[in-house]
């Protein structure tokens, strides 16, 4: 990051607050989650590094450290910490991260693509049939579960490959990523139904 602190001039790691003098910055809603965590946009994210950043930056913006500094500072801290938490949530979730990148690069949205290919929908109908008929814990259900998990892994690998390195803005490949993301939603829904049918947690 090349931005500097308006208060003390030190380099800024995050637009939320200055690590050197501690001043809180005003950040607009919808700021780029990568920027908030001091990262360049990109699909691969090191989970451990992300967490270290979250902790480091939370130390700068957590409301507890502004408890006696008046309502205004406290409100700003609440807000900046909420932005930080939201950015972390987006970046630590593969789907949300990919979704942001596709949108950022001008790719199609979930609805832009229209319906999924016929063959895929047929497959989904088969899963649903098994889900309706097979009893929880049965061999059939277990087979479906492992099949879906495999399917999910395959889609994830495709998405990661298509987004690493990041394609050019507006690239045609973005539509493929969006389709994979949509497909994964179906898979996740089915997997969710399996774990729900296995009984309450």
């Amino acid at each position, binding site marked *: 990051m090349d931005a500097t602190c308006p208060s003390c001039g030190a380099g800024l790691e995050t637009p939320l607050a200055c690590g050197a003098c501690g001043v809180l910055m005003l950040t607009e809603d919808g700021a780029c989650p990568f920027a908030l965590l001091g990262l360049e946009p990109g699909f691969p994210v090191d989970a451990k590094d992300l967490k270290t950043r979250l902790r480091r930056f*939370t130390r700068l913006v*957590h*409301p*507890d*450290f502004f408890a*006696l500094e008046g309502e205004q500072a406290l409100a700003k801290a*609440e807000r900046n910490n*909420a932005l930080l*938490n*939201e950015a972390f949530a987006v970046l630590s979730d593969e789907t949300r991260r990919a979704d942001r990148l596709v949108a950022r690069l001008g790719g199609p949205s979930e609805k832009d693509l229209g319906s999924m290919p016929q063959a895929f929908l047929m497959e989904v109908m088969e899963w649903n049939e098994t889900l309706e008929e097979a009893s929880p814990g049965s061999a059939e259900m277990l087979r479906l579960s492992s099949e879906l998990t495999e399917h999910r892994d395959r889609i994830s690998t495709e998405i990661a490959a298509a987004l690493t390195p990041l394609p050019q803005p507006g690239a045609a490949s973005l539509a493929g990523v969006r389709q994979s993301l949509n497909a994964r939603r179906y898979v996740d829904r089915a997997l969710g139904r399996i774990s729900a049918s296995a009984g309450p947690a």
Partner: protein
Amino acid sequence: MGYIELEVLEDQPKRVVIGIDLGTTNSLPAIWKDGRPEILEVEGEPALIPSVVHVSDDGTAVVGRTARARSMDDPAHTVHSIKRFMGRSLGELDEAVLRRLPYQVTQTERGLVQVEVGGKRFTPQEISALILREVAAQASVAMGGAEVLSAVITVPAYFDDAQRQATRDAARLAGLEVLRIVNEPTAASLAYGLDQKEEGTVAVYDLGGGTFDVSILSIEGGVFEVLSTNGDTSLGGDDLDALLVDLLRSELEGSVEGSVFDDPAFRQAARLSAEKAKVALSRDPEADLVISLPELGVNARRTVTREEFERLAAPLVERSIRCCERALKDAELEPKDVDEVVLVGGSTRVPLVRAEVERFFGRAPHTELNPDQVVALGAAAQAEVLMGGSRDILLMDVTPLSLGLETMGGAAEKLIQRNNRIPCSVKEGFTTYADNQSAIDFHVLQGERELAADCRSLGRFKLTGIPPMPAGLPRVGVKFHLDADGILTVSAKEESTGASASIEVKPSHGLTEDEVSDMLEASFKNARKDFEERRRVDLIAEIGIMLRHATANLTVAEERLDRESVEDLHEAIAAAKEARLCTELELVQAARDTLDRATMPLAAVLMDSVVKEAVSGKKLGDL
């Protein structure tokens, strides 16, 4: 004001923030001192305040030990365990709990719970405020008179928005600013100094008087993160007592009229006897349940072995272990991943509880600190952070319950998921269904269920001031913010015109802003007594400061004072020390005035030397 001048010799005392464990059974204040948290003590004893309020028919309320002492003879005027009612409506309260109460519980038209004692109705917030007032007063005495205006208060991690808000309102009614509401389990691990750990996972098992909580925390380089919380708001030490009360009842069955069991005096005596036996059973292999109420024809002794008690208690303990399982599952961990287990709450002294916790987690739990004190100690540690003393400790919390809105078909749409980090904000867009519609109603829910009716209603919000426009055109952005304490605030803006829409809040279980103001006003108006009590506490605080200065300065300047003044002062100091425990305003006032007069000669001597030093310093500088 002889002592005021003396303050030039010392730094101004900094603002005091205390930690308060506002418990179901007892409340306890603690403070950070000399680099560690410390339980505040009065007369060498922890300033433990039983969370009990007694209200006489003339409306006089007493709190704490005195109230608990009266509960035996006068149970119908004594309120226990009010924490169970905080932020709840009548329909949500456990009927078994209500049945055991020796007083009436009613609700207002709006559904707010009220307890009826001494011919007056009190909301749980008001009862809790009385307790907090007493805690602050005792803390003030313990600190030699420093005024207590701000506090960190702990709540079960499982508390929802309404319960947290009720706690905050109670503090406001007590004249305390709540700087932070901290989850009890988090406080407990702070007390154990687990923030010093390089890295690890901690399970906090908190079996309090009225609630059970388990939290799984991760600690890394001083950062606390609540990974998950689970619990049961109707499982606690009181339930263990109830098992023993049931034993007593079956012992008496047949020998007394059934109506005796509903007699408030019986219920209270049975409860106290059960509590005593429970404590004894943690130590001894057997104990006696004894009850003797000649006026009711009740006289019984029943020996209980630990084995029998454990057999009865096993299902309750089992329920707590199931919560531990769920908490671990949410944190995606196995029992073996837990590095430390912390016990909180007096009931964790029950050997069966310790054994089951150890069996489940596969390791011995921490028992070094008093399980009744760990939460208050941790609150004090957090108070130090808030006073700007340290950034070493950082609590990163999660919300225990999902937050959502009721949609058209009565379904609950989740906006913020359970275990989401807080603070957090969510923005939702709304529009109108009819032309020129100027208001939108919505219903905020908390809970995990799919249907709105199965979730807990937090409140109804009415968005007004939408400019007249065709249906579907306005774009109203509503921002839901869960703050670091887990309390919700809602704000709104009409985005197409920039007109600010306003939000009217109707909490389902809490006090409105107006109600809090009214209660505050009423408490000012009503109570000359309150005023006098306040004045007394202030005077005691003042005496504390005076004593501190007088004793300190006396050792420095004693030889420069005439003998008579020294004697006067010693006498006045002794009298003032006694007066701090006095309940009569006039006597406290007199002691303060005497001390004030007696310190004047000392002040004069000291001022003299200060001036001399200052003057000689100047001369030195001039040279």
